[in-house]
């Protein structure tokens, strides 16, 4: 009994350590955002700002068009998430349910495509988009985000499709449902958590993305939030730390809010699937 208790305590301690590890950067960002330059230069930093100030937020908004950049990020991220999910869902179903040489090759290609480094594709991509007149346009950037998110979205959704027992579809067929009816009324609801998770993945990837946005967007009114955040960093990596932390803190909020709203649905769906199996 004592051994079981100590094991449990050990587990909770490990979990707590992991949580602290995960939360540390965000909490430090939060703390920095409310500190004055003098406090930021202190030899003995504190978690709780001694003289909390909103000056960093004021300065961040004064210096850079944060709201406009956030709107651009939101348009690109939501657009990318929706389109990626719409394309990936039927493709993932085919990849998971119809095993053939073609689907195996497609799966292999999905894996291989993840291995290409960004710098390898950026110049050809730039030239392609230039020919399509999609440079300096959020539509072009959204398109890139869709393509960039698609392989992993496919991979992820195919896993969710495989977790839905094929017997359920057979039962629906026995009950007289056609293929389309089965997909829409039986498979799609069971896939909802997977679709949500995939959409969230695509959203967060696009929301945080920096390099494509930096290279593809030319004018200030098109720039996204991650690009605008770098404007607080100067030569030799010297940063305007307070405003940068304030802006970065605000930039992380949408991802946190979206995740907080739908996380129960994701985990709930996963658990449901587990029980059924």
């Amino acid at each position: 009994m004592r051994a079981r208790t100590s094991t449990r305590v050990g587990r909770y301690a490990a979990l707590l350590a992991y949580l602290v590890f995960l939360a540390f950067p965000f909490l430090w960002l939060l703390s920095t955002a409310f500190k004055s330059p003098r406090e930021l230069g202190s030899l003995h930093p504190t978690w709780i700002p001694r003289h909390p100030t909103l000056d960093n937020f004021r300065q961040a908004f004064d210096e850079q068009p944060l709201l406009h950049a956030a709107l651009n990020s939101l348009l690109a991220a939501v657009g990318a998430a929706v389109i990626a999910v719409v394309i990936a869902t039927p493709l993932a179903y085919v990849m998971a349910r119809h095993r053939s040489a073609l689907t195996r090759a497609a799966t292999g290609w999905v894996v291989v495509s993840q291995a290409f480094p960004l710098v390898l594709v950026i110049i050809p991509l730039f030239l392609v988009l230039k020919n399509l007149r999609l440079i300096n346009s959020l539509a072009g950037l959204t398109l890139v985000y869709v393509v960039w998110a698609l392989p992993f979205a496919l991979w992820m959704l195919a896993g969710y499709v495989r977790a839905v027992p094929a017997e359920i579809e057979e039962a629906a067929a026995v009950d007289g449902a056609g293929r389309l009816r089965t997909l829409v009324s039986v498979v799609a609801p069971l896939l909802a958590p997977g679709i949500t998770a995939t959409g969230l993945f695509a959203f967060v990837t696009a929301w945080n993305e920096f390099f494509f946005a930096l290279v593809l967007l030319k004018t200030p009114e098109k720039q996204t939030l991650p690009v605008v955040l770098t404007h607080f960093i100067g030569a030799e990596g010297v940063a305007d730390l307070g405003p940068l932390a304030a802006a970065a803190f605000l930039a992380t909020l949408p991802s946190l809010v979206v995740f907080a709203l739908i996380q129960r649905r994701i985990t709930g769906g996963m658990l449901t699937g587990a029980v059924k199996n």
Partner: protein
Amino acid sequence: MRSRTICLLALALALLAGCTGGAGGSANGRITLRFQSLAWQQESVEANKELVKEWNASHPGIKVEYVQGSWDSVHDQLLTSFEGGEAPDIIHDASDDLADFAYGGYLADLRGLLPARLKSDIPQRSWETATFGDGIYGVPFLQEPRVIVANATWLKDSGVRIPTPERPWSWPEFRNITRQLGSGGGKGKYGVAWPLKEPVSATLNLSLSAGGELFHRGADGKVTIRFGAADQVVPRTIHDQANIDHSASPTTLGSGGSDTLPGFFGGKYAMVPLGFSYRQQIVQQAPKGFDWQVLPAPAGADGLTQGVSPQTLSIAEDSPHKKEAAAFLDFLLRPKNMVRLALGDWMLPTGSRALRDPALHTAEDGWATGTALAAHLRSAPAQSVRGYPEWKDKVATPAFQEYYSGAIGLAELRRRLVKDGNLVLARYQR
């Protein structure tokens, strides 16, 4: 469910439609120039934007569009823009980043474009920083010497001689004083904290004061590396301070300049060698009543000479409006405007008339000390040497880091810098 899918598709299309926008350009015969600025500090951004506004108000036929760039990623971003033919017309960068773009034919040769006033206002030694081959590919306009920022109270209490640009410390004197300051400070206190996250540029630029050139161009135009006695003065001083005298903090050797400031304010270090523009952070962050001062870097056989890589303004070779872009540069870099830009960035202007401005000669915040160093600033060694970035990253940075930390000795440092370094350079000079 089907209607939900249709709704999703419609939403996606609507978002895409909403996202689409045309690229900027000229219209109605009015020329539009895109000026990508890397200004990032509030005062500097304001100064740049104000100047653009003033230009636009006085030049209705040539509109300048201010585009905010970032130092963090400027090289990659420019490279892609050049390759794709979408580069801004006017480009803000630093002279040590221009070599590849100049040799690659992406930047316009400014020799025939700039007015005589601007050419004669900026001294030849500054033009050399942006000269690659026979052409000039950028206007050097802001520069920053490396200075020593000191805890004035600590120095006063120790009774050491305070150096001036007229009577600077020599390198041996600097070592002695650092030792004196360190031993008088108590446990955990150091005479100096060298922030050497980027050890190569700091070492090479300061080595010019001792006559260390390191890179030597032969009669055939090929560059080779030699690590002679003059090249060793600065590295040996830093190494000995950190490893023999223990008067330099070992922990800051891998830090950036900003990282050393809390320790400096907290009384751990008497002095920190920093770029001149760090004064802005010091003014912002120093605790109330903290007394600090700017001192010149130590002098060697060549006096106070230092290498710098000034900030530059270039014109893209692909720009269809080079003449107009040059006219804008002429406006932006008029002496008064250059002073505004320099004050905004807490740096020194390169223009000789701007350097005479009284605002740059006040004792406040060390402006006068920095301005007195302007005449001693030269082109940073090797910035026009092809293969330098690879030598710096693969050979010199790890070699200097290991030497300063005491992991290797001077002989091994020389072997790596010279033998390994010349192999790297040879590949670029075949």
